[in-house]
């Protein structure tokens, strides 16, 4: 299996990109290193959401909750206890996956829109608790100044740590998507009724998918803490979850790397457009509308061959008339 992957052009591209990224801190200033690190974290989060949305067809509307739970768990452990850092790093994703399991168990009983609305409701409860439990979470202010172990503190060290962890996670995700489970998940996306008829318990598989996706969201949360040294209740806010959704749509939710690309574009837009104008969300809204109307499968979903073929069809249809 590994040998097959090593031979594909996609892997060679990925390896080239990885090597390039390794070299970035040698040439680029701290600001660009930081931005790239933000892209890594956000990208991982978007990729984890896409496991469920693009490959699983689920209406995961409040994915940010699991990101936030992972971040808060790690943040609280590192800031308020004297446990070693790795405990916090492991507890984050586990807490996120556990939350995913509990909320998921509620949601898979229903489908489509109900699934989404229920998740928003349950996730909002966690948000409001984080916002109001001032003594534990510092409420609206969030927690700042979280200490990081020496080897990964500082923006360059954090950058490398994030690069390695995110690459490892992506590799794992790739394996999972190529596995029988991945194939089954896509079948569930395409036709849940047919799946039931061939012996696949849709609920069971969706729940497993949720646990995996929320685990990776938790990893992304932990990485955020490593990078920023802070946590904010905004991570748990529902509107943020919809932004992650947009990243998947923007990049292409039926492709593997699409969400990562979408996250990169979003971060770039927010950083660079945001420095010119305070009306960055207006531009985001317009971009989203353009996407919905013209590029519903995202940037990477544009299949040039299909477009050419459909152009041919339209031409010949015109000729007949």
């Amino acid at each position: 299996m590994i040998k097959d992957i090593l031979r594909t052009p996609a892997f060679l591209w990925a390896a080239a990109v990885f090597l390039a990224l390794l070299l970035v801190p040698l040439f680029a200033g701290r600001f660009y290193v930081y931005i790239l690190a933000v892209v890594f974290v956000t990208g991982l989060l978007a990729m984890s959401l896409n496991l469920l949305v693009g490959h699983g067809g689920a209406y995961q509307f409040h994915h940010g909750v699991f990101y936030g739970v992972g971040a808060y768990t790690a943040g609280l452990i590192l800031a308020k206890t004297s446990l070693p850092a790795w405990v916090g790093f492991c507890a984050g994703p586990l807490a996120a996956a556990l939350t995913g399991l509990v909320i998921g168990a509620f949601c898979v009983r229903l489908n489509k829109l109900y699934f989404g609305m229920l998740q928003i409701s349950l996730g909002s409860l966690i948000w409001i608790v984080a916002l109001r439990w001032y003594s534990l979470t510092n409420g609206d202010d969030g927690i700042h100044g979280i200490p990081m172990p020496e080897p990964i503190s500082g923006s360059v060290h954090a950058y490398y740590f994030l690069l390695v962890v995110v690459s490892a996670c992506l590799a794992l995700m790739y394996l999972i998507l190529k596995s029988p489970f991945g194939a089954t998940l896509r079948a569930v996306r395409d036709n849940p009724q047919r799946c039931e008829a061939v012996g696949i318990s849709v609920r069971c598989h969706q729940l497993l998918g949720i646990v995996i996706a929320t685990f990776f969201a938790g990893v992304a949360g932990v990485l955020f803490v490593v990078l920023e040294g802070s946590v904010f209740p905004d991570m748990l806010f529902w509107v943020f979850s919809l932004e992650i959704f947009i990243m998947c749509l923007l990049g292409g939710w039926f492709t593997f790397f699409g969400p990562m690309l979408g996250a990169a574009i979003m971060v770039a837009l927010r950083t660079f457009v945001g420095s010119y104008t305070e009306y960055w969300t207006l531009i985001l809204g317009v971009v989203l509308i353009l996407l919905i109307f013209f590029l519903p499968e995202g940037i990477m979903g544009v299949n040039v061959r299909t477009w050419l073929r459909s152009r041919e069809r339209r031409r010949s249809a015109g000729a007949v008339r």
Partner: protein
Amino acid sequence: MLQVENLRKSFADFKAVDGADLRVSQGDLVAVIGPNGAGKTTLFNLITGHLQPDKGRILFKGEDISHLPAHQVCRKGIARSFQIANIFPRLTVFRNVQVSVLSQKNLSRTLFRPAHRIMLEETRQILERVGLSDQQFAIAGSLSHGDKRILEIAIALGNEPELLILDEPTAGMSPDETAATMALVQRLAREQGLTILFCEHDMDVVFNVATSIMVMQQGKTILQAAPEEVRQNITVQEAYLGGA
């Protein structure tokens, strides 16, 4: 093998199935016929677990499967194809069948082995048996209507069923395609010892192929017997065959 006893199912006030009985013995090719709205598809949905009956029983090999959900009914050895081609449109033909095979072998939750290395032989065999091998890498949504119906059957075969339920397998097919499909069905039944239960509107198909016919009207079973007996039964003639 399969026994349906006095099955009833209503949707609000509408009695979709109102006293259906069915007997299917091993090796049979049983056809269910009846006018539109007679409740045939609802009956199939009840048997396969997509709907739960209000009253009555469904026994499969002696076991009561009346209230099992669909994916568990499948595990008992019953597989089904649907009236409207119900495939996985974005997946390849090969993957369509492979998903079914993986489910049957309980491998659908395997996370860390590549799907393109598992169950290849079993999937290829099924595709060969139904004659779709040359299209195995086509996207399922792009197949012709007739080929989609055959893919339907192939997906059902992935479950290694003992009883195969086909919901109007030749709907919308030309006479050539119909003959080919039914020949395929009969060959599969012979080669793999499958028991087949199907419903159809095409009377030629029914009377040529079936070993036993069950007639439904307004949700009730009027009669189940050998084809000749059904053909000569006056009630059936008046109700359905138009007094032929």
